[in-house]
């Protein structure tokens, strides 16, 4: 009920084939009772497809990376900035300084603000500064990744798998035991 008040558009689904009733009568009685409480009774496979749709739609939501946006919202609300407004860079800087935190996120933000020379910063700009991925370009930047992703795993695997292809024969047929 509390959830229905908070989220009036919420739909409730009950998975019928997840029933723990020990007899068919009890199962049907349970379904009847549930049906009276305006909920939808679905099978596990139907629930699966509903979930797939939900997952697809929530991926499009801008709150996909929820913690990232929540943090930005906290910073802006601590600075007393309303929705869709930008924050003064000086206010942000003193806000960060007053936290006395050695978090790498906050130091990255301070460094970027100093380098950019901007007077104001929006939520989207802050997200970009903190979280937008920098793509590697050129061989020299990709080389460490190549070593870790292909070269070392390949050689590690060769080295640790070789014993399985000769030890049993070496003991039973090699070493002068043929």
């Amino acid at each position, binding site marked *: 009920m509390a*959830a229905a008040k*908070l*989220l009036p558009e919420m739909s*409730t689904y*009950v*998975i019928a*084939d997840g029933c*723990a*009733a020990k007899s068919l009568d009890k199962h049907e009685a349970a379904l009847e009772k549930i049906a009276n409480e305006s909920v939808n009774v679905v099978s*596990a*496979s139907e629930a699966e497809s509903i979930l797939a749709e939900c997952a697809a739609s929530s991926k499009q939501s801008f709150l996909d990376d*929820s913690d990232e946006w*929540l*943090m930005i919202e*906290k910073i802006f609300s601590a*600075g*007393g*900035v309303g929705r869709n407004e930008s924050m*003064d860079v000086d206010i942000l800087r003193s*806000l960060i300084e*007053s*936290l*006395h*935190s050695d*978090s790498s*996120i*906050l130091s*990255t933000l301070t460094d970027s603000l100093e380098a950019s020379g901007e007077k104001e910063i929006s939520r989207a700009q802050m997200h970009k500064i*903190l*979280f937008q*991925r*920098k793509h*590697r370009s050129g061989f020299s930047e990709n080389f*460490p*990744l190549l*070593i870790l*992703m292909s*070269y070392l*795993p*390949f*050689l*590690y*695997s*060769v*080295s*640790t*798998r070789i*014993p*399985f*292809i*000769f*030890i*049993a*024969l070496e*003991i*039973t*047929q090699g*070493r*002068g*035991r043929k």
Partner: protein
Amino acid sequence: MIEVLFLCPRGMHSDSNHLHLCFLGELWEVGVVLGTYQVSRALGNLIVVMFGGKDPFKRLQILLSCIALFGWSFLALFGRPSETSPFSFTPYLSETDGGGTGSIMPLFALFCVGLGETIVILQRSLMMETAKESPSGIMDESLVAQRFSYQYAFVSFGATCAFIVGGWLYTTIGYYSVCDFGMIIQALHLLGALVYLFLARNGKKSLKGDELDGNDLIRSVIYRFQAASVISKYSQDVANGTEHAMSSESQGLSDAAIKAKSDRVLNHSLGEMYRHFFLQKSDDVVCMEELLNSIESTQATGVNASLTSKRPTAMAIGKHKLSKLVLFLVKSKGQGRLTEREFVSFWGPRIYLSIYESSQEAKSVNVIWPYMRAVVATQAIAALCIGIFLSTALLSYTQRFPERCDAATVGLLLGIGEGAGVLVIFAKSYLSGRKYKESTNNLLLGILKAIVARPLNVPFVLFVACLCSMLFSVDNFIVAVTFQMIYSAVNDLAVSLMNELIGTSIPSEKFKYYQGIGQWLRRLGNMVTAILGPIFFGIDERLPFLFFGKFTLSPSDKLSVSSPNYDVLTRCIDVARCHCFCMGSDALVLNVHACG
């Protein structure tokens, strides 16, 4: 049986019974050597987990690579006949044990080779390297998952090459050429590790010395802001009268205390705050005053600060007295200095409650479903099947089909199987990204769809793997090869599917623990099969594959019965949480209706 072996001189077998006893003894030795090797691989993992620290590559990779190189060098040089020089790769006629005594002792140097089990280090380094691409050092999880799959593909490709080249070298040249090959490979590995270390040292950015990483860093910042707000509100309440502060305490503080205690990030943030303010000066009251002043200045920084009323604090007491009062309430003992523990345990529950105040029910849904524990255990049991193939497939092929199989042929067959495994994983990644037209009327298609979907695909693939393991024991070369190929192809898929299932259905903070337990159990399973495989093979050639195939089949059956509905329910809760968040509701009361 070992005693019988020692009483039986090489080449002096008088009758078939005696010969059989000798063979049984040799199988025991195979079990002991391979078991030792698997134990050392498990130990390698354990060393990385226990002593690897934040950056295990810097700390352990070179050391473990050197130990593995020493192992291969020892195997390649100890008792080496003079007619074959290192890296000559030419056939030789001498006995391979430096005297023809048949001693297996030098083979225990494989223990050092096994310590080179460093895949966990490579995975961790790949995560750190990916994190460097983010300005704030937070890795993109989907990108890491994609890179892990490429890394895993190269591991499988390495296994393919190891089986094919190793088998061919052993058959055409001999034991020392395989050890030479191992030495070259390990030396190249060491060289690559040194190059990477050099590049990482000269890289433009490395991870900061923070105790936290990933999403924890973000949460830590959120907690710092929340802490400031909670401490400020509490001190205002105290300024209005301590009885007011006590009565305004929210209900559920004791529940929150339990949860706050286990929140590593919250404890880290508060600990950092304590250390900054309370370790600088010797007087706690001055320190507390400084903390309150700092929070006040933070709030005064806000653009709307001028609008907030200062009346309550101004009316009640001065800042020094307020600090004394707050300190009195925070301290659990009257005398002595305020400790970090007191500070954290006082503010932790209040901050936790202020963030999750109305979502206590949602938090309590954070459960590990019983079938997920079964999946973790199944990881270990499934390792029995692959373990039995690793330890006994070579013996099985060469003993059952001696006219058709030598090490080179077996290596080729196992290598092709591993290659098929890589292709199956790539095909699965490709097909899972495609959408198909709905045709719900087709019953057969519906059944197939249900089998291919999560989580039913895990027991299904395991069922196929177990069946292949058992059918491999059929005394027909074509049948054995067919089922070995199918087994190799689906084995990697089963491991990958179980990782995916655990990764997505267990709360992230519990993932490391359960995955760690699963990996440790896997190694234990490998060790058991390394020892028992050859011994069972000595009893009956079909026994190891039939026994471990059937043993693995039973838990996968139970998993298939229990998993689907629990999994759907778990995902319902996840999606409901996600939707409530998207709709901007902090006050989430989540009711989960389960029929019956």
